[in-house]
């Protein structure tokens, strides 16, 4: 921990507090996620170990946040991530103007490329050791795989809807209400009852949206996972190839953390620093090239 100097608090996630910090040796800015362990009786929980493993196994990718390091600290441990200026919820909430269609397309492409990448990775790592019986571990592993693969695409659909609408697509009072449209086939479904809800046509939920956007949204929000569109196929959907074309990532707004609203647009996607040589602050042509080719 003494390798980092804390610069400030970024926020609080489900698992712990996130700090902005500087790696003293290299001067690199990072995000430190401090995970406190609640139940210490049996040491470090297996979920934590497995999550770290999954993050470590995802190789370098422009669209997936990189886990740089992890070490035990106090009674918990600290995950070191590359520092991100903002996140998508901040973009949706803090944008002064609603996002343009072209910007929405730009964000969707970045999101789908990240998901497509995770998906490739998780499939390749699907192996499971020799279990003779169809034990719980197999099922557990299955669900572990499905999170990046299948359920995630429903989530993609919901984010897509939120981007189109600037507000949550299925606002529920709580998680259970939000889930009502998705879980009717799960074994414990009947233990919680839901009001009968007549379906509302998507066109009404996302008004003022192009037909192609609605078409793509429908393809994400399909219950049977096999019929749901794959991230890699979605990237080839006509939505991304019709006017207005997706915005380049340098054209996407970057809100300031903490709600500062001044000079927020058209900043380069990283911070300038007077300590760094000028040439390091120039946009890397490789990045643009990757973006131009990435969708094929």
């Amino acid at each position, binding site marked *: 921990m003494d390798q980092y100097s804390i610069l400030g608090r970024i926020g609080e996630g489900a698992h712990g507090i996130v700090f902005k910090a500087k790696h003293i040796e290299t001067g690199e800015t990072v995000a430190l996620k401090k995970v406190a362990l609640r139940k*210490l*009786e*049996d*040491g*470090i*929980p*297996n979920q934590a*170990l*497995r999550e*770290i*493993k999954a993050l*470590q*196994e995802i190789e370098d990718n422009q669209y997936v946040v990189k886990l740089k*390091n*992890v*070490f*035990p600290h106090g009674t918990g*441990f600290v995950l070191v991530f590359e520092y991100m200026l903002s996140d998508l919820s901040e973009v949706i909430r803090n944008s002064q103007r609603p996002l343009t269609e072209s910007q929405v397309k730009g964000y969707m492409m970045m999101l789908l490329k990240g998901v497509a990448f995770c998906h490739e990775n998780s*499939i*390749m*790592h*699907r*192996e*499971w*050791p*020799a*279990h*003779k019986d169809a*034990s*719980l*571990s197999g099922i*557990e592993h299955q669900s572990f795989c499905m999170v990046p693969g299948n359920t995630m695409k429903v989530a993609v659909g919901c984010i897509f809807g939120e981007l189109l609408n600037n507000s949550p697509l299925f606002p529920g009072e709580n998680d259970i209400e939000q889930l009502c449209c998705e879980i009717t086939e799960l074994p414990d479904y009947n233990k919680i009852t839901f009001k009968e809800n007549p379906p509302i046509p998507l066109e009404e939920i996302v008004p003022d949206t192009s037909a192609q956007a609605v078409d793509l949204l429908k393809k994400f929000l399909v219950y049977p996972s096999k019929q749901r569109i794959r991230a890699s196929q979605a990237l080839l959907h006509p939505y991304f190839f019709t006017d207005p074309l997706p915005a380049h990532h340098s054209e996407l707004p970057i809100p300031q953390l903490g709600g500062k609203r001044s000079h927020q647009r058209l900043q380069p996607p990283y911070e300038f620093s007077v300590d760094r040589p000028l040439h390091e602050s120039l946009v890397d042509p490789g990045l643009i090239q990757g973006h131009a080719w990435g969708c094929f």
Partner: protein
Amino acid sequence: EWQNFREYGESSYKIQKINEEKFLPVNCLARQPQVTAEARCRLVSWLIPVHRHFKLSFESCCLAVNIMDRFLSTTPVAADCFQLLGVTSLLIASKQVEVFSPRISQLLALCCDAFTRDQLCNLERIVLSRLSFRLATPTLAFFLHHFTQCRLAQSGWGPSDVARCW
């Protein structure tokens, strides 16, 4: 499982084969002042019945030995802590592989309560830190299982025959 093997067997094997060398313990006893090859052999021979006692998979056992060996190549271990390293490795491995891992109290009892919970938890953190939390070792258990299935596939066996074998 047979279906999985047909669809993913070859590609998992290729990935695991590439990853294997990143997880090989290098000269694990070279820098150990007290732990000898004989002591290591005794500890592994003890871990085998221990993993059976807890009904853990062979995968857990293999991973435990790999964790222990990789730790030994980074850090000198005193002879009287060596057994604690064995059970700690087994605990970490089973958290990675199993649905239910053994309780710390059970593991300590098997060591005749020679060590405390704090010592074990401490060592767990040290091991994880020394290995940078890298636990995705392609194990002996994986390769053994893969080659067995390849052999069965070559001899033209169907899923039902395979099910009988396992």
